[in-house]
Each structure stands twice: as C-alpha cells, then as structure tokens.
C-alpha cells in the first residue's frame, strides 16, 4: 500500500468508528427537542466536562494556534488567555443562566432574551445573528479539515472533494445523534487529540532539538523577540500590546455567546455541576503550550510558509519526517477536532433558528416533530453556506475565528446586564446590539481594505463592544425599564 492509502485509510476508519460509537450511545433515547437540543437537562459533571472541553480542542486549536505561533510568535499567546478569562466570567454567569433556563423551560440564548426583555423581536434578532455568525466558524472547521486531508493525501489528492464528503458525513451524524451523541463521540476525539498534541509538542521538538526546552533555546537564538509582543516597526507590528489585551477581552467576554453554548449550559444537571466545570477548565487550556511548541518547531524545521499557509506548518513537518501511520493518526485526530465542534455548532445554530425565528417569529414548525425536522434541514443549510464560503474565500483559521467574535460578543451586554441590572429594557439592549454589529463589521471591513488588523491600535470588535455598552447604559439611564424582570436570581 502506498503512504497515501495508509494515511487516508486510517483517517476514514477513525471517523467511521467515532460515528458508530456515537450512534450506539444514543440508540435507545426518544428524540424530542428537549433531548435532542439540551440532552434532557441531565448531563452530570463528567459528560458536561467532555462537552464543554470538546469545544476547546477544535481544528482551530490544533492547526490555527500552531500556525500563529509559527507566523506571528507571541500574538498567539492570546489563545492561552481568553479561555481562562471566559471561565472566570462563566463562574458567575453560567449558574444563573442555567437556573432561569430550568425554571422557565428555556432551550436557547434567544429564549433568555425573550424571557428577560419580553420582546420577541429581540429574540428573533439574537437567533438570526447566532445563525449567520456560525457560518464563518463552521468554515473555519472545514478549512482545517481540508488542510488535514490534503496533507494526509500527500498532495496527490483533491481536498475539495474530500472535504465535501466529510461534511455530508458530519451533517448526517448531527441529525441522527444530537447533542448526547456528539458529547460521547467527543471522548474519542479528546483522547486522540490530546495524544496528537503531546506528540506534536514534545516528540517533535525532542526529535530535532533534544527536548522542548532545547527547542526554546534555539528559537530565542535564531528568532530574537519572537516570544514577546512586537514594538512598533517590527514585521508583526500590528499585533501590539493594546491589540493583545483588547482581543483577549473581546473573545473572553464573547466565549459563551455562541449558539452551541446555551444548549450546553442547559444540558447540565445542576448549577453546581457548571460551577465545578468552570473552576477546573483552565487546566485544560495549558495543553495549548504544546501546540505553541509544535508551531515554533515547525518555524525552524520547515520555514517559509506565509499567511494562511502557516496553518499547515506542523502537519507538514509530520508529513516530511514521520511514517504514514503516524501522519494518518495525527490527521484523524485533527479531523475529529474539526467535525465534532462543528457538529455542536450546527446543531445549536439550527435549533435556535428553528425555535426562535421560524417558531416564535412566523409560527412555522411549532410542534415537536416538525421542529426536530426543521432543525435537521437548517443544519444542512448552514453546512452548505459554510461550504460556499470555504470555496470562495481564503482566510487563516485565526482570522475566521476573530471575525466570528466581532459579532458574537455584541450579545454579551444583553445577557450580563439582563442578569444584574433591572433598569435595562429591550430598547437599550437592542440599540446597543445593533450599533455594536454595525460598527464592529464596518471597522473590520475598513481594516481589511486598508490591510491592517487594528483601529487605533485596538481590536475593532472591542471598540464596537464599548459603543454597544455605552449606548445600552445611556438608554437604560434615560428610559429605565418599568417591568420587574422575571428571572433575576437571588444571588
């Protein structure tokens, strides 16, 4: 057998095995929306940990973080910090969101907006935003898979065809397995990815430089200042300290605002389960250190990749210096890291759209069976949109993720103020949200046209968030909401 056949066979076998495993774990459950979307609100600490942690190891972590360490150096360290910030916020935010969800029978984040602000229009707006913002995120995972399949095929292989097939498999997987199947499949994924990351971060540097620390010594000699944020005038001068801080804040605050997050929160058995998860989740982030090591190693062993090509960096090193079975296993781990998070996101986005836009907005598909079917059709629609974006544009994985966060973080003021401040009403939140989206994407577009990444040295999405919050606060002070909010927690 040729190397190409061996590597691709391993990838195919692993994906197929994972799907079969997921299907056997959900076979006997009745599939109503409560079960399908929020897992029957019965996930204990372990399954919830797997589900939440599963969203960390995506192909973004696997390839994108290494790619940035390779291409931009210390700027990549933001990825280590933003999850940690998110868990510190989530420690306070998630238990009350869960409690209200259980009391009021909520399934989505838009439900929370409708319940708290008593405004269907706001709910529809939130649902539609989450639905469309997921497209670049799913594109990111597709992009990651295309890189992995391309490299596992040793270049003699059409990545576009492969990724299309994989995507169909994933869509089928989503609408047979639901949230619980995806959570259990994440067990296989996390074990494989952890193994692959440790291999890439320890065995790769050891192979070339004796040890990871030997690799760091070499890096500091050959690339001085690579592990600090650049002073003005440097090649990566856009990624300065103000950019770094505002990007961590933007992405950390927006972390739990995605369409997959509210269902994951509601799937918890108790508030305590969530709190315990938030306490220990930062430890999982430390694995990123090894991803950085893999990127740094690739920088010295296989230099010359530029821009979004650097996402391929450490996989190319594995392809060049290791046997086909090793490449196959690492690529398979990476493919699962793309497929499973994309599957939770597709499910979350489709659920929120079918419930809050079709159901609440237009009174379509309101019965349990129709809604489950609408969710399945919508999964296919987002998947197709993501495929179209992937075919038409090229962007680095980190760029796609940051594009997503510019929009998704604008939902945070409505959630946080909604929990802690009674004066805030639907007009304040709605105006802030719309202003945030418009300013955020206008500035992002302006920056892209001018080939820069920052506006006044800071992340454009963060500027938009500041305007969003300011507008929301001003309107709330000028026109306080009269109604007593339904779900304000006792503390």
């Amino acid at each position: 057998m040729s190397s190409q056949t061996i590597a691709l066979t391993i990838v195919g076998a692993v994906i197929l095995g994972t799907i079969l495993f997921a299907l056997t774990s959900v076979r006997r459950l009745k599939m109503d929306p409560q079960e399908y979307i929020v897992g029957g609100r019965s996930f204990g600490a372990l399954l919830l940990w797997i589900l939440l942690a599963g969203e960390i190891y995506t192909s973004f972590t696997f390839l994108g973080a290494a790619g940035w360490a390779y291409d931009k150096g210390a700027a990549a360290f933001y990825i280590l910090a933003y999850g940690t910030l998110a868990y510190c916020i989530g420690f306070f935010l998630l238990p009350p969101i869960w409690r209200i969800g259980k009391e009021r029978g909520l399934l989505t984040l838009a439900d929370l907006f409708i319940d708290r602000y008593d405004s269907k229009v706001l709910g529809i707006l939130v649902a539609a935003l989450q639905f469309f913002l997921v497209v670049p995120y799913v594109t990111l995972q597709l992009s990651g898979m295309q890189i992995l399949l391309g490299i596992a095929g040793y270049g003699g292989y059409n990545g576009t065809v492969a990724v299309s097939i994989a995507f169909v498999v994933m869509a089928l997987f989503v609408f047979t397995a639901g949230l619980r199947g995806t959570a259990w499949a994440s067990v296989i994924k996390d074990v494989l990815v952890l193994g692959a990351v440790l291999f890439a971060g320890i065995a790769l540097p050891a192979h070339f430089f004796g040890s990871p620390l030997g690799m760091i010594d070499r890096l500091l000699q050959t690339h001085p200042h690579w592990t600090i944020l650049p002073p003005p005038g440097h090649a990566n001068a856009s990624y300065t300290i103000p950019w770094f801080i505002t990007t961590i804040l933007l992405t950390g605050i927006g972390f739990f605002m995605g369409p997959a997050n509210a269902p994951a929160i509601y799937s918890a058995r108790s508030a305590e389960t969530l709190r315990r998860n938030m306490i220990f989740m930062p430890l999982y982030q430390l694995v990123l250190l090894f991803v950085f090591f893999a990127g740094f190693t690739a920088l010295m062993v296989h230099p010359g990749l530029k821009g979004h090509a650097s996402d391929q960096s450490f996989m190319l090193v594995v392809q060049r210096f290791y046997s086909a079975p090793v490449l196959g296993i690492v690529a398979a781990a990476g493919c699962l890291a793309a497929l499973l998070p994309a599957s939770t996101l597709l499910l979350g986005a489709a659920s929120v759209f079918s419930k809050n836009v079709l159901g609440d907005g237009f009174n379509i598909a309101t019965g349990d069976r129709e809604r489950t079917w609408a969710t399945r059709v919508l999964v296919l629609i987002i998947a197709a949109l993501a495929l179209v974006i992937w075919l038409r544009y090229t962007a680095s994985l980190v760029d796609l993720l940051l594009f997503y966060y510019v929009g998704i973080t604008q939902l945070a003021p409505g959630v946080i103020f909604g929990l802690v401040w009674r004066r805030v009403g639907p007009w304040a939140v709605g105006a802030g949200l719309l202003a945030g989206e418009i300013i955020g994407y206008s500035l992002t577009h302006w920056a892209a046209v001018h080939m820069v990444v920052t506006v006044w040295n800071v992340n454009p999405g963060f500027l938009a968030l500041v305007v969003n919050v300011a507008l929301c606060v001003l309107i709330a002070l000028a026109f306080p909401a009269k109604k007593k909010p339904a779900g304000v927690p006792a503390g």
Partner: protein
Amino acid sequence: MTPAARFTQIALAAIPPVMLTLAIPFVNREEPRILGFPFLLAWMVFWVAVTPLFLLAANRYGRST
C-alpha cells in the same frame, strides 16, 4: 450573600484575568527565563495554571457566607 461577600468573591475571580490582560505591558519581556521559558510565556502559563485555585477560593467564600 452580603454585598461585601459578593465583592470579595468577584475580586478573587478577577485577579487572574487582570494578570493576563492589564498586567501584560509590565511583563512583555524575554528575560529572565523561568525554568527555561521566556518570561512572558512563563507568566501567562503560571496565571492560567493557578486560576482554579482562585476560583476554588471564590467558591468557598460564596458558600461560607
């Protein structure tokens, strides 16, 4: 929970995020190396690693008051 207790809880949980964001201008350096790691990376890894301790403390504090 009293407002003072709530404040202490939030302050405890805010320490790691502040160290990972606002403190960055003061730690953006390569030297001194800590266990072989460049300083900025060592600083960030340290604060991520000790975050569970701060959140555990916040959790204890929330329950005892």
